[in-house]
Each structure stands twice: as C-alpha cells, then as structure tokens.
C-alpha cells in the first residue's frame, strides 16, 4: 500500500517534470513564432525617423498610430481590397465546385484511369508555379489575340481567376477525394436504388455530406489566394486591378523604404485573414487534419 503511494508520487513527480519540460518547449517555440509578429507591431508603432536616427534596437522615443493613418492614406486600401474580393471569391467557389466534381467521379465510380487522374491532379500540384509563368503569359496573349482582344485574359480579372482555379483545383481534388472515401459506399448505393441520377447523386446526396470539408477548404483557399502576389503581379499590368498585396508595394520607394510604414501596412493587409482565422478557427484546424482519419 505505502509502496504504491510512493510509486504514485514518483509517477506524479515524473509527470509534472515532463509537463514542465513540454510547457517550456512549447513556450519557447510559441515565442519564436510570435516574435516576428510582435516585432512588426512594435515597428509599426514607431516613427521612421526615430529608427534611422537611433537604431533599430533603440528604446522607442515616440509611440503612436501615425504610420497606420499614413498607410491607409497611401495604400488606397478600398480599391485593392475590392480587387482582392473580386478575385478571391469566384476563385474559391469555382475551385471547390470543380474539385468536388472530380473527386466525386474518381471516388464514387470505378474507372480504369481513376488513379491516374488523381495522380495527374496531385502531380500538377508539385510543379513550381514560377516555371509555368512564361508559358501561361504567352498562352493568355495568344488566346486573347485569337478572339481579337489582347486583354481578354491578360490584365483581366477573369485570367487571374482562371489561373488560381487551375492551380488550386489539384489540391482541392486531392483533399476532397480522400474525404469522400470516408463516406460509406452504402449511401451511394441506396441513392442509386432510389433512382437518383448522377447529378442528383452528386448535388443532393454527396455535396451536403461534404460540408465540413468544403468549409475547411474554403477557409484555407481564401487565405492562400488572398495572400497570393506573384500571379497578380505578372498577369495584371494595371496596378489598379491588382489585389491588396500590391497595395503594400506602393509603400516601397525606388531607393528609400519606410519600413515602419510598411510594417503598419502589412498588419492592415494581413488583418482580414487573421480575423477570418479566429472566426473560423474550428474549420481551419479541421482542414489541416482532413482525411487523416480515413476509414
């Protein structure tokens, strides 16, 4: 009895020590992760002149929100935010729609080339997008010239949306198909027996069951497409049509860059995704573990 008590205590102490270690590690890593963000916030509150006169690591002489006020004035935030929404919302909807269609076919029906199709979509995901930039650029011009309007895809929202859909649909297919595999076959079978045609089977039976996966994916994809800068930069020659990431580039000069102003701008530009994350935290985490418990 007393032996057991001692052992228990030993065990508990051991456990406590382990917990302590783990907390310490988590604390250190959390700090490493959060530090750049805290530093950005700190930087954004200091005037530029303060930093260049006294050094980056100096004690702040002035703390104020002037950088935020100036950033909002300089960034023309309304235009760029609207552009981001014009691009992001259709891109996400179309990606999920096409992704779920393909996933539906490859998981609910047995074709010989199912696996190959899935592989093709996943492999396309591995291609670095910068490699495809020049071909996409020429293709857009060529298609435009074919219809007699150079700006049909190039320098047009539609082109940007198309590119995003093209590059994201592979990942969406991959995730949705592995999620769809967890939906019991019997559901599909009974739907067929009840006389549902293919589209009804997809739209009324499978799609509602996909809701958690779609929610999770849409949050992930919105963040990715919202944060995307490369395609918007190279496929839009009009700055007034570029998304919010381009507004930040307005704050950088040819030689002199006010990094404090830029820090404030970065926080403003990042805030929608951060807010989105906190509102839809559950879906976000679900998205990260999606398909990991495949039956």
């Amino acid at each position: 009895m007393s032996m057991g008590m001692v052992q228990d205590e030993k065990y508990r102490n051991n456990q406590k020590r382990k917990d302590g270690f783990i907390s310490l590690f988590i604390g250190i890593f959390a700090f490493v992760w959060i530090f750049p963000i805290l530093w950005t916030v700190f930087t954004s509150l200091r005037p530029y002149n303060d930093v260049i006169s006294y050094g980056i690591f100096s004690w702040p002489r002035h703390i104020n929100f002037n950088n935020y006020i100036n950033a909002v004035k300089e960034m023309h935030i309304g235009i760029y935010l609207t552009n981001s929404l014009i691009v992001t919302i259709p891109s996400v909807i179309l990606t999920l729609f096409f992704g779920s269609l393909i996933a539906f076919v490859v998981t609910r029906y047995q074709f010989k080339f199912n696996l190959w199709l899935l592989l093709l979509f996943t492999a396309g995901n591995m291609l670095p997008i910068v490699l495809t930039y020049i071909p996409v650029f020429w293709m857009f011009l060529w298609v435009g010239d074919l219809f007699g309007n150079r700006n049909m895809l190039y320098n047009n929202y539609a082109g940007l949306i198309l590119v995003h859909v093209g590059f994201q649909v592979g990942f969406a297919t991959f995730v949705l198909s592995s999620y769809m595999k967890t939906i019991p076959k019997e559901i599909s079978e009974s739907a067929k027996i009840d006389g549902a045609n293919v589209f009804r089977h997809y739209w009324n039976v499978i799609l509602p069951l996909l809701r958690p996966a779609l929610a999770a994916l849409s949050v992930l994809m919105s963040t990715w497409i919202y944060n995307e800068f490369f395609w918007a930069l190279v496929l839009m020659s009009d700055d007034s049509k570029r998304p919010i990431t381009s507004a930040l580039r307005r704050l950088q000069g040819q030689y002199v860059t006010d990094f404090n102003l830029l820090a404030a701008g970065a926080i403003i530009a990042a805030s929608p995704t951060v807010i989105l994350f906190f509102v839809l935290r559950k879906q976000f985490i679900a998205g990260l573990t999606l398909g990991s418990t495949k039956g």
Partner: protein
Amino acid sequence: MSEEKNVLSRRTVLKGAAIGGAGLAAGSALSAGTASSASAAGADIHWTTRGGGATGDAIAKAVNDAFTAKTGTKVIAQQVNSDDFQNNFAQIMQGSPDDAFGWMAGWRSNHYGEAGLLADVTAQNKALGKSLPASAVQAATNPVDKKQYIIPTTYYPWGLHYRKSMVKKIGMNPESIVHWDDLIKMMSLTKKNGLVAYAMGDKQGWEAMGTFDILNARVNGYKYHIDLLNGRAKWTDAKTKETFKYFAQLIPFMNPNFMDIDWDGCRDLLLQKMCGAMMMGSWFANDFKAKSQKDYDDLWVVPFPEINKAHGIDTIDAPLDGISVAAKGKNVEGGKALAQFWGSKEGINAAIGAGDTNIYVSKDFDTSGYDAFGKQKLAVLGSAKNIMFFADRDSRGDFAGPILGPALQSFMKNPKNVNKILENTQAQWEALPKN
C-alpha cells in the same frame, strides 16, 4: 447499365466544365471589350509612374493635366512599384503596355530598344532642341544603331558623403578632401576614434559597384572603364588589377558586417554619427532633414578624390533617367508627344510645382532656389566631363547583377583572392551568350 451511367456522368462533368469555361470567357470578353473600346475611341494616352507614392502621383497628375490643358488629349495615369516594373519589364512591354513611362538610360533602354520594345524618340529629342545639353543627348543614344529610345530628364550624382562636423573634429578641413591621400588620412583618423571609416553595405550586391566604378575611372579613366564593362578590355588586365589594389586599401576601413546591411544601413551609420565617409548616390538628404535641420546642414558631398593625375576627377557616376515610349502601346504617337512634353520647360515646371526634387538635365531647369547642399550636388555633377550610368546600366544586365555583384562581394570578403576572382569574372563574361 452502370457503365452507361459512367459515360453519362463523364459527359455531365465535361458539360459542366464547358459551361463554366464559356461563362468565364464570355464574362471576360465583355468586361475587357468595354475597356478596350473606350480607349480606342478617344485617343487617350496611358502613363505609368515608377514609384514615388503620393508625391509621385501628384507630379504625374500635374504634368499630365498640363499636357491635357495644352493638347486636349486625356492622360490615364497609374503608379507601379519601381522594382516590379523593372523586373517584369520585358513581359509588360510585350503584353499591353502603357504608352509612356519613366525609364532609365543606358543598357536598359538601348537593349529593349534594339529588341523592338521601345519606340524611337530621336525626333522628339531633336524637337526639344537646345534645351537638352549635347552630353545628355549623347548619353541617351544607343551606340549600336545610333537611335535614341529615351528622352533624358533627370539625374543624380554619386559622391563621397560625410558630416562636416566630424571631419572638423578630427582636425581636417571638410572642404578639401580632394586627393586619395586626404581620404586615407581622413579614414585613418576616423578609425582611430573607434568609428567605421568607410561605410559599406553590399547585401544586395549592387552597392559596392559604386565604389568600384569610381575607383576604376579614377585609376584608369572613363574610356577604359566603359571598355571593360563592355568586353573591350579584360578583367585580368594589369590595369584592372591596379584598380583592385586601391579597392583593397579601403577594405580595412570598412564595417566588417558589410554583407549584412543594405545601402540604408550605411546611411543610418552616417545619420547616427557612427561612420566617417560613405560613397553613395545622393538621394537620401531628406532623411537628414527629417531628423533635424542641423543634421541636414552638416551633410556634405564631394566628388570622389583624385587618384591618377592623368584623369583627375573628370568622371562621375550619375545615372540618367528619362521618359520612354512603348513600341507596342495602343497610342505610340500620343505617347511620344506626352514624353516630349515631360522633357519640355512646361513639363518640368509643372513637375517641380508639384514637389519634384530631382535635378533635371534640361537647360530650362531653374536652380536658383537651391540650398547649399543642393548647390553642392550641382557642383559635384558639374565637376565631371564624363558621365557613367553605374555599372548595372553601363554593362549588360546579365553581367552586372549576376556576375559582377557576387565577384565584388567575394573580393571584399577575401581580397587576397583577387587574381582568381578576376579570372573567374573574365571567364564568366566570355561564357555569356553573344547577342
């Protein structure tokens, strides 16, 4: 049965995709159609401002509005980030470019002009006539086909910057840093005080080119420097090695962390009175003014000291900017007219009225309102008879950034390796595709 269904479902998928795709295409054709027809109907001119924030927009608006008032043609302006525009220049020019824009003289306009992406503006430069100095027109001319692809407007000097008060403090006269020995003495005394004697920041790889350019021009003269950068002289020549001997003398006076800081790190050293001298383009005086008028009054710039009597101080790095016209724009003639207006007296006055602080090459440019530092900048520019545009504009683009920049970095890290580095540089030059 089930196979039939499968076929059907595949069709449905395809149909869905087709409808989606067609919808997209139709939507885009609609929106783009209205945009393009609008610009084709009126003879609007599109203009790109390269950076500059709110001031850049204000200057563009002032000049373009003045143009509209004069000619009745509407100008649609936009601002883009300078680096992004430069890095994607070839694609932008081949897509649907704006008609006229601010651009850079030297290789960057000559090369794209030869490639058929920039319009020939020789006639516009001729029309500006005597207001443009002959040297500026010469500088804007492509040496190969003798055409001009840019209307020269503004430039700025590269010089040796320091604080007058700090030079006085070490017992020297800030007005007479004129010879290499003066510079060595100044740096030695500064170093003795525990400060950085020659601020260098070469993280990006281009900053040290300013020092190299001027050393080579001082030691071997303008002609040799330009020949070297264009393959008519060799990096392994004894003359080139001589330049690097002088460069090596500077290295012990530099801050050891030159690979970790940008040019603005150097500026901060000078602003915080932590370094003696800094060789840099003179574009940051406003940062001194922002700290205090006293700091601004303390800032000084002189031509880089003389090394070889034969060449004196006859050469300077003064990158020339100007206005170019896209050859594949929708309104090339309109673009040319607008570009010419930017280089004319009316255009310059409109720009300055809107807060432009650049130095214009035009003889119509009024400098009477300049303060002491501004006047000194003009004096530094006036001291030279040969103008270099900086290594990355005097040489081809695939040499300066990717080859010369890293070579200078490795030289400063290990100056003893100079022979090997120069051999390497020469070999890399020879391996470049001929065009």
